[in-house]
């Protein structure tokens, strides 16, 4: 307030004549820019620059060992179109993402609805389901790796009840499902908490009115709860889809992309190309593909919000 009055006084007392370049407005702008410069510099150095560099690298053949960096134009993109592994990799990526998003969101919503009841002991369960979120991803995955071994804990339990469990991480059918489940249990708590917060924001009087009208529990959930928490569903689905496309550690620890290429998702494939096969240029091309897929999906979800997200203008 004082500042505003100062400025007004200064403006009144300012001598007329040639005005200085540094007007109050310009000085304020400069101050603002200087304050955001460190954050901006960080974003440029660690987000925008790498993004541009990846596109630049994708136009080159870069062999780290031989120390060669040759411009090859669109050659890597032609290689991408002809790569016989890419269809299988995209299929695995799609399977993982769909499996993860559907299973994760459904389970998170179910847990949130169950734990939203006013019953004794719900806090204990909330903590229990959320705790994997704070556990180190690698530790979590390694422990699951032991549990899922052929002679591991899960098959031991199945054995005790007379069931001959499959070789979870080694057979084509179960390897992908196992990786999805391990990832869902790791992160379902986070989505659960977000849903829980959304559920508690639904006005009670709407439920009371619906009940007075004789609506069944399912109708109440479908007509009142779901529409009112739809912004949270949008948020969690974007986070989960983007996260699912970036899965790496779990694949690297549990299956290394196998058996065959059944769990070789895009991120793991580009890691193999760049870091194991020393083809950094082609690896960068695959990152560009990943970037475009993430971008397209996010734009699509953002557009779709108009159709199904309630109270979005």
């Amino acid at each position: 307030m004082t500042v505003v009055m100062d400025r007004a006084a200064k403006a009144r007392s300012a001598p007329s004549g040639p005005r200085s370049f540094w007007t109050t407005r310009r000085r304020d702008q400069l101050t603002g820019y200087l304050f955001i410069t460190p954050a901006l510099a960080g974003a440029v150095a660690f987000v925008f620059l790498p993004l541009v560099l990846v596109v630049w690298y994708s136009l080159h053949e870069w062999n780290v060992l031989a120390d060669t960096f040759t411009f090859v134009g669109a050659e890597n993109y032609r290689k991408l179109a002809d790569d016989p592994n890419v269809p299988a990799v995209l299929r695995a990526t799609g399977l993982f993402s769909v499996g993860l998003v559907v299973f994760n969101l459904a389970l998170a919503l179910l847990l949130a609805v169950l734990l939203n009841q006013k019953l004794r002991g719900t806090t204990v369960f909330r903590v229990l389901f959320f705790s994997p979120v704070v556990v180190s991803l690698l530790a979590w995955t390694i422990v699951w790796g032991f549990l899922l071994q052929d002679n591991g804990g899960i098959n031991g339990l199945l054995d005790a009840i007379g069931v001959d469990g499959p070789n979870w991480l080694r057979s084509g059918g179960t390897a992908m499902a196992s990786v999805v489940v391990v990832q869902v249990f790791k992160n379902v708590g986070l989505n659960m908490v977000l849903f829980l917060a959304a559920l508690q924001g639904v006005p009670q009087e709407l439920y009371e009115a619906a009940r007075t009208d004789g609506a069944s529990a399912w109708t109440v959930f479908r007509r009142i709860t779901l529409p009112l928490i739809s912004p949270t569903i949008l948020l969690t689905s974007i986070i989960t889809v983007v996260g699912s496309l970036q899965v790496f550690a779990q694949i690297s620890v549990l299956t290394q992309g196998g058996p065959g290429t059944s769990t070789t998702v895009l991120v793991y494939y580009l890691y193999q190309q760049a870091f194991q096969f020393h083809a950094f240029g082609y690896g960068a091309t695959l990152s560009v593909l990943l970037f475009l897929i993430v971008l397209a999906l996010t734009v699509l979800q953002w557009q779709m919000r108009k159709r199904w997200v309630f109270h979005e203008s």
Partner: protein
Amino acid sequence: MRKTVSIAAIALLGALTACGGGGESESGGPVTLRMTTWSANPAHVELFNAIAADYRKTEPDVTVTFEALPLENYTTTVTTQIAGGNAPDIAWILEGSAPDFVASGALTALDDSIENTADLAPAATALWKQDGKLMGYPFSTSPFGVFVNTDMLRQAGQTLPTGDKWTWDNAVAVAAATAAKTGKQGLVIRDFDYKDWSNLATVFRGWGAEAWTADGKTCGFDQQPMVDAMTFLHKAIFTGKALPAPGVAADFFAGESAMTIAQISRASLLKDGKFGWTLVPLPAGPSGAYSVIGQGGLGVLKKGKNAAAAQEFVKFFTSPANSEKLAQFFPPPRQSQLNAGTLAKANPLLKPEQLQDVVIDGIANGVVKPSHTGSAEISQAVRSALDPMWKPGADVPGVLRGVCTAIQPLLAK
């Protein structure tokens, strides 16, 4: 107002200058050399540090640090360090990626950095030469042998076949019987784990099979010797239960299996002697007796910051005197040291006849594990194509034909 602008400017300047790294002294001053290894074995590390400490006595300005990286990602980690402009000065190199490192020009020639190169066994250096120049020094030329838990065999009422009776058929029979009696595992091919198939060379060479021809151009997986070897192995795993099934973990050195195929450097894991054991050569296959060698080389990276100092240290590290010390873990490539006398001094855990049979004869007759340029991509393609074989009832010849379909374009590159 002006004060606010100045504070913001100073803060920005501070942030920017803080980002600038502090350089290293290029020449003259103290030098720190970094050597990457894949062994965190305390006994190995202790020996390396002792050698580095000895070196410091004559070169007080040079400090050498040893960075142990996990074996399964070793080459990837080193490559990433090189790509990130943080290349180690000296790196161990696995035999599988030797052709890539040697042919790429990433290494400096070591001919002037190794004392008495005429003493090096030609079989040991073959993989490490490029145009007649020695690009890597094979500090470890280690034959594979079979470690046997004699206590476990006795407990299962089995005896270890010897002489002509030490064949793959008999070895697998004893392993299966011991596993069935004790509830432990039979024979573990160490580090194979149904992923690193190059360790299977310790089995399929007994049938005279090769992953590819000597010129590296033609796939050998669909040839009859390989089909026979893999059919035998498949039967031993899924019918005989002589080897642990996929996904089953068993460590011989923790007393979890009757036998394991491993290199002699693993003998140090048996120092505490929790059970009786012996070391024998690989069993004879249908094509007779054979031996397989695993190698580790070390090279000086051109992109390291102190290549000249690194070459000097390599000269010291590989000198005959230090080579003799290293021989307790890593059989040296120096012919003058490949005798039972020298090796026995360095390997108190092994008996002279074990050293003669497994190490000395093994190096003389052995063939190095499969290697090829572009080995990581080829290995991955083989691993992936072999996966369908690791289940009961698999079509072994069909899977092996699939391996060749997958790798032939890569071999032809």
